[in-house]
């Protein structure tokens, strides 16, 4: 057996104007978990796309079990034993779990010249593989009825069913609860013991410690090095990743001393019985209010309802002492609320538009000159100010937002709301999929906004972030607020206790 299951040698890839990868090496031993780390924009995804033949490498070689390979496309990769569980899953929600698992390789029965899909066999096989990864869902259920975490396990089951030699997990835990992460790790260890190699892309240090054997670090499209995880400290990993010392993960909190209530929510109920019910809370001026809970606790649904993206059956939202009536985002914006949504690509960025347009879109009303005519000069200044203030890394404000890294895209969305100057800013998973350096900058922005007297609501599924940044934390479980902890008293244990307080 070859020393390495998968070896990528001197892989380079250029796009017009950028060298995305510069002679990257990756050597994955059989039956190990190999962590691939680097800030967003370091080139991890590009490297994986080269591996799967989605991009053509400019130079470099790929060896699988010591044999030189050229991989033409993702389908070819699958047949050669490479499987990937994507960061952003691309399932077909309206088809069944089994159909999604066997898409493109349905088991067939032949009736003479006519081939028909063998649904019975497909469903049985799917059930078997789901059982194998201990996710016993009904293979005939629609995929769309599952949570993101569950869909992910379906993807893993699919990879396992194809007897993959190398499975790539791209930020698999970004939307998983702790229990689900445990379940995932159990599957990962199981795969490992069967000799499968895994490439694990993640920003979460604790997970790397727990699950990975080796680690390869990339920075700005270059190869930094490969270590055994036991030989390298957390600080060292971060230092190698960012190329600078990061002393604090969270900026110091400054206690707010205002008692003025900015936003009050009273007994808010969703139109759906299974969503949030009887939710009440208060947000004070200058406060960062965290919202903790498991995935599915209906935190996002609650915030989207306050912002007018979802319907409410009963209850009251009071802003600056006055009840407000919000039925669509426009109303909420008019009343001084801004919202950074969880799904950046789906409801955040305007992909094919420039940074300038993305920043100014929600505040154009403030820049009307005569009638519907815009004051273009003023808008340019606004954009320039914000790009500088948030240190958004971009060649120009005319650059398309889709060409930026996740962290910079998120900063553009924050800039959009800063331009609008809301009193209350709701941030739903503001640092999801964002590298360490950009995370810190986003925390700093939040703290400085709070200092200016704004109120900030932050939903976060990352416990340390929740504790590190919030002044106060409301914890939700199953659509209800199950408790409140102050920033000082908050520990992972007491939040978890409240988050799992089912009736």
């Amino acid at each position, binding site marked *: 057996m070859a020393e390495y299951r998968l070896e990528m040698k001197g892989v380079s890839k250029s796009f*017009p*104007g950028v060298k995305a990868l510069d002679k990257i090496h990756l050597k994955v031993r059989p039956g190990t978990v190999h962590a691939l780390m680097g800030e967003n924009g370091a080139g991890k995804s590009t490297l994986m796309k080269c591996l799967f033949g*989605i991009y053509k490498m400019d130079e470099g070689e790929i060896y699988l079990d010591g044999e030189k390979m050229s991989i033409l496309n993702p389908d070819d990769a699958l047949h050669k034993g490479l499987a990937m569980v994507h960061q952003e899953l691309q399932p077909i929600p309206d088809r069944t779990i089994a159909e999604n698992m066997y898409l493109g390789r349905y088991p067939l029965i032949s009736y003479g010249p006519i081939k028909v899909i063998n649904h019975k066999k497909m469903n049985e096989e799917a059930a078997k593989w789901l059982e194998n990864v201990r996710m016993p869902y009904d293979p005939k259920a629609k995929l769309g009825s599952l949570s993101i975490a569950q869909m992910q396990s379906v993807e893993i089951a699919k990879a396992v069913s194809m007897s993959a030699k190398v499975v790539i997990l791209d930020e698999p835990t970004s939307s998983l609860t702790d229990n689900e992460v445990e379940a995932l790790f159990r599957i990962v260890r199981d795969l490992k013991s069967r000799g499968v190699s895994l490439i694990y892309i993640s920003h979460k240090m604790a997970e790397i410690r727990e699950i990975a054997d080796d680690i390869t670090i990339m920075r700005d499209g270059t190869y930094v090095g490969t270590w055994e995880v036991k030989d390298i400290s957390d600080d060292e990993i971060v230092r190698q990743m960012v190329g600078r010392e990061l002393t604090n993960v969270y900026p110091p909190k400054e206690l707010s001393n205002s008692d003025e209530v900015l936003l009050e929510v009273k007994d808010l109920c969703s139109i759906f019985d299974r969503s949030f019910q009887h939710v009440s809370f208060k947000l004070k001026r200058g406060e960062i209010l965290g919202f903790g809970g498991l995935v599915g606790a209906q935190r996002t649904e609650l915030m989207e309802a306050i*912002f007018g*993206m979802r319907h409410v059956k009963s209850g009251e939202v009071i802003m600056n002492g006055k009840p407000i009536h919000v039925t*669509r*985002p*426009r109303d909420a*914006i*008019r009343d001084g609320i801004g*919202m950074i*949504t969880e799904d950046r690509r*789906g*409801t*955040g*960025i*305007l*992909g*094919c*538009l420039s940074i300038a*347009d993305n920043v*100014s*879109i*929600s505040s*154009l*009303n403030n820049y*009307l000159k005569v009638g*519907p*005519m*815009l004051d*273009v000069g003023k808008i340019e200044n606004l954009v320039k100010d914000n790009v500088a203030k948030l240190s958004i890394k971009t060649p120009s404000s005319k650059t398309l937002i889709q060409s930026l890294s996740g962290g910079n895209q998120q900063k553009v969305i924050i800039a*959009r709301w800063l331009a*609008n100057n809301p009193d209350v800013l709701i941030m739903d998973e503001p640092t999801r999929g964002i590298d360490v350096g950009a995370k810190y900058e986003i925390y700093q922005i939040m703290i400085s906004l709070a200092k200016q007297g704004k109120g900030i609501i932050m939903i976060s599924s990352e416990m340390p972030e929740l504790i590190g940044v919030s002044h106060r934390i409301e914890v939700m479980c199953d659509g209800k607020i199950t408790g409140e902890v102050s920033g000082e008293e908050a520990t992972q244990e007491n939040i978890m206790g409240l988050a799992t307080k089912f009736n």
Partner: protein
Amino acid sequence: MTKKVDIKKLIADNGIIIVLLLLVLVTGLTRDNFFSLNNLSNISVNTAARVIIAFGVSGCLITKGTDLSAGRQVGLSACIAGTLLQTADYSGKFFPNLGDVPIPLVLLICIGVCCIFGLINGIVISYLNVPAFIGTLGMQLMVYGICLVYSKATPLGGYRRDYTGIATGKFLGIPYMFIIAFVIGLIMWFVYNYTRHGKYMYAIGGNEAAAEVSGVNVKKTKIIIYMTAAGLYAIAGFLLGAKSGGASVNMGLSYELEAIAACTIGGVSVNGGIGRISGVVIGVLVFELLKSSMQFLGIPTDYQYIVQGFVIIVAIALDIRKYIAKK
């Protein structure tokens, strides 16, 4: 090095325009009179009406919609104008007892009527969430039917001199129609680039859900787009009637398809969010030049349709390819 790549990309992105311009060049060099002032002026007049329609359609396309009722609205507008602007002594006068209606009033009536259909299009698409393709397809049939009922399917003719003069008249040697199209183009360019409405339009095309979350009034913006489009079809129909000196219910048939094709050739993306007024002008111009060259080359009309259809498919295929290559 980088310059070389750019040229390659330029050719790939504008392939169809380059091929069509070569065709024009070949026609011009092999046929007399193609580059004559008379023919160019003729092309500019043809282009003028078509570009006005394409301006309207472009807004729909940029917001990921489309407007299949464009051609029929053009026809309806031409018929309305025709019935109201016949000479008093014309034997087949549609309204025998109608006096001389002022031309601006007729234009306003045409615009007003079409805007009602545009409004309905907009409401159906934004409030009833009917896909633009289906909603405007239904409207296409309805407008045709209404036009048949209104005109009783009689061909119209015997127009007043002052009406047809709009098409034939020139100012300092420049056809009025060219000037009208140019002014409308300027206004549209300004609207697309320097107004809130324009920015909202691109935002909706880029990501409708995100635009909604950012506080954009998506429904209102779409309704304005479809109404503006209808108003432009009305103007185009009014001018086309003047140009041909007559109108019938079949006027404007499938003009929407040519407008969509021209927009696409000019870089308006059928995936939404992308498109410039200058591109629309180039697209329509190239398409009209293609038609004119084919005439000069003596290609029979029947075959011309085959070529035009082919060009439309190639143009859209190339357009899509651009975004696939971008990944």
